[in-house]
């Protein structure tokens, strides 16, 4: 076993004696495209709603709740899928989030929230994770679609226009500060600011 590993290591450290430098460079380049493309495709697949709700933790809990909200069904037919709100769009942030999500794979394997009851026990902590994330990035995932600069206050209700033109405009508040529980049901809100 040790010998086999040693032979492999020696081959890698020695200069190539048979293939031309050109073949190695071009071959490496093509292999790079294939592997990188494959990696990105795989990443994109994990970024679809079908993938998210392929585990029943998501499908039977949070996805069912989303179905009743305006982010699922509305007059213009534009809808938000899971990754639109829960995965950053910028590449570096996305990779960072995906790395964090490996803990969720652990949870799925060991069934941390595989029943509705277990899920509800953890609901407040899980919700707080998302609120903190959105608070920290100034509700970036909301703003991917809802752009403040193009909001028409005259089309909003008086109350909404007032809040958006004062608290939101000054940066004192961000979307998630008020719009909690817009896509899923809320946990027990005792102790949460504004409740």
């Amino acid at each position: 076993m040790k010998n086999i590993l040693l032979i492999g290591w020696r081959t890698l450290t020695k200069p190539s004696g048979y293939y031309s430098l050109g073949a190695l460079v071009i071959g490496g380049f093509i292999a790079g495209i294939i592997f990188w493309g494959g990696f990105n495709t795989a990443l994109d697949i994990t970024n679809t709603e079908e993938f998210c709700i392929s585990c029943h933790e998501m499908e039977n809990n949070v996805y069912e709740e989303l179905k009743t909200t305006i982010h699922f069904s509305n007059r213009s037919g534009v809808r938000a899928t899971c990754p639109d709100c829960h995965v950053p769009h910028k590449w570096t942030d996305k990779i960072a989030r995906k790395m964090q999500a490996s803990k969720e794979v652990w949870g799925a394997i060991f069934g941390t929230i595989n029943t509705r009851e277990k899920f509800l026990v953890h609901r407040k902590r899980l919700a707080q994770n998302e609120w903190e994330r959105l608070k920290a990035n100034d509700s970036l995932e909301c703003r991917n679609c809802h752009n403040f600069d193009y909001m028409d206050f005259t089309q909003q209700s008086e109350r909404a226009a007032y809040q958006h033109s004062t608290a939101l405009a000054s940066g004192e508040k961000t979307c998630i500060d008020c719009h909690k529980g817009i896509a899923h049901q809320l946990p027990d809100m005792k102790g949460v600011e504004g409740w």
Partner: protein
Amino acid sequence: MKNLNLASITGLTVLVLALLFSSFIASAADKSEINTLATLRDHTEITEQKEPVRIPNVVNKDIKQKRNYPMQPPVIPHTTRSYEVNMNNNKCLSCHSRQRTEESQAPMVSVTHFMNRDGNFLAEISPRRYFCNQCHVTQVDAEPLVENTFTDMHSLMKKKVTSAEND
């Protein structure tokens, strides 16, 4: 004996026919009466499917509406879509509770809602008053199905006073 039988059979038949006939007339009368009632079906034949009316929008003007009588639960002048009122949360109270009204400038829940059924005041909203939308409802922008002839006490008394003055 045979004649008597025949007579009784004829008599019974006539009676049954008369009863049937009168019941037909009665049911026709019932029908016309039923058709005068205002329903969502609005005189549509039972064999037909009525074209449903458009679902009207909820009034979202944030302007208080007059109460029709002093004890009427005030109606809600804004939308309450996906407001949760359940074991965990009461979305209404996040603006209308005593502690939150200063920031929200929303009307506070009436003090009667802090009383239990014996009239004693509690520190928090009484559990029997927790489910706001049992009494308080949003209004839709729709024509009423029937004309409303309700007159409130104030107008009645005013009318009485003016008619007494005229006499």
